């Protein structure tokens, strides 16, 4: 990026800071990608404008730029996802779904025209339409698999088998469970988009699971057996003496089931925690110990 920030914002070299701010605001309003959801070029333009403002909007940086000490390259914008990137993939029934923009159209009419034959297959042959559903399941149910039900609009419950290892956003297809077909033609399918609720301490990472495990000072220093929660029950893990905060340990095969029958791993990151309340004995002990200590854990930071 070597263009002139004054040119980008369309201001004169002697423009006041106020002029620059209002020029930036005007352009930002015009080119913000979320205010132009269909314009792919808006993103590049917005980046240029933001970078120009990064320099000219800050009086110090502007002076340095004028003296030729810095150029636009220092103000390059970090890649960032705009809301429009998510809005287009938001599932129907998502929290930001808003149909007021077309609520005056006859909804039944609109949706029967648009969505009834969404699957497309055999629209002219009388096959039943596919039905779309959305359901939420617990993290552990997704990892371990379970059987649950969804209720169809007519109140009939449909049994859904959630395979172990189901991931967030996955669509399950139940063949023949959609709308019935005309005159003996096959019924459509039920398509169920599964959303997995986050867990309190497990985090899914593909087929692996990550967990942060609090350990006491004595466990960290002396080592020993600690209990570790896994998605299918707690297990014992042996800590070596002198196990540090941030250390990552792997419990093989305690992750998520893969398609090929193997399982991912559970990655445990240790985190040393002090007792809830100050402990006079500990304070005294550490006090004595600290006197003979010259350990600087921040040495590598140069402080």
């Amino acid at each position, binding site marked *: 990026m070597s263009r002139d920030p004054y040119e980008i914002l369309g201001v004169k070299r002697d423009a006041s800071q106020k002029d620059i701010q209002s020029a930036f605001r005007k352009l930002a309003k015009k080119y913000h990608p979320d205010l132009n959801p269909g314009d792919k070029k808006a993103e590049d333009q917005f980046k240029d404008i933001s970078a120009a403002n990064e320099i000219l909007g800050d009086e110090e940086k502007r002076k340095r730029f004028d003296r030729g000490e810095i150029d636009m390259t220092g103000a390059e914008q970090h890649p960032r996802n705009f809301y429009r990137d998510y*809005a287009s993939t938001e599932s129907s029934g998502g929290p930001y779904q808003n149909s007021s923009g*077309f609520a005056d159209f006859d909804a039944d009419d609109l949706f029967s025209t648009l969505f009834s034959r969404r699957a497309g297959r055999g629209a002219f042959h009388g096959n039943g339409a596919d039905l779309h559903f959305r359901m939420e399941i617990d993290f552990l149910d997704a990892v371990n698999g379970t059987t649950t039900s969804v209720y169809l609009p007519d109140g009939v419950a449909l049994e859904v088998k959630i395979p172990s290892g189901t991931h967030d956003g996955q669509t399950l297809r139940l063949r023949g469970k959609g709308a019935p077909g005309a005159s003996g033609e096959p019924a459509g399918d039920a398509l169920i988009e599964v959303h997995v*609720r986050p867990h309190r301490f497990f985090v899914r990472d593909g087929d692996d699971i990550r967990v942060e495990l609090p350990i006491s000072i004595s466990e960290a220093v002396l080592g020993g057996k600690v209990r570790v929660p896994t998605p299918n029950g707690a297990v014992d893990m042996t800590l070596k003496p002198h196990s540090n905060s941030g250390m990552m340990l792997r419990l093989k095969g305690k992750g998520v089931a893969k398609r090929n029958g193997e399982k991912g791993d559970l990655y445990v990151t240790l985190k040393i925690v002090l007792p809830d309340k100050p402990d006079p004995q500990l304070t005294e002990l550490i006090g004595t110990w600290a006197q003979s200590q010259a350990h600087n854990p921040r040495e590598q930071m140069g402080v």
Partner: protein
Amino acid sequence: MNDIEFCAQLGVEVTVIEVWINEGWIRPETFEGSRAFRLADMARARLIMDLSHHMGVNEAGVDVIMDLIDQIHGLRRVIESAMSERAHLDDELDSLIKKP
């Protein structure tokens, strides 16, 4: 991500997030009594910050804009479906015409 991670990423106080949630600009999921934010929520938060910090839009303005943006995406989705349905019908018509 939880409240703390969300606030840290954005560099704002929890009280600010509370306002956004009360206004309905951000709607995180709730899980076991605590909030869970998604990347879409993060992107919305950045948009809100752009509007209120960089563009000088006040609270009432942000409220109107967020609502209109959601409406636009609703409409975009309908147009998209209409277009794909049309393409579908074209294909089916073609195949019917070709078949004797």
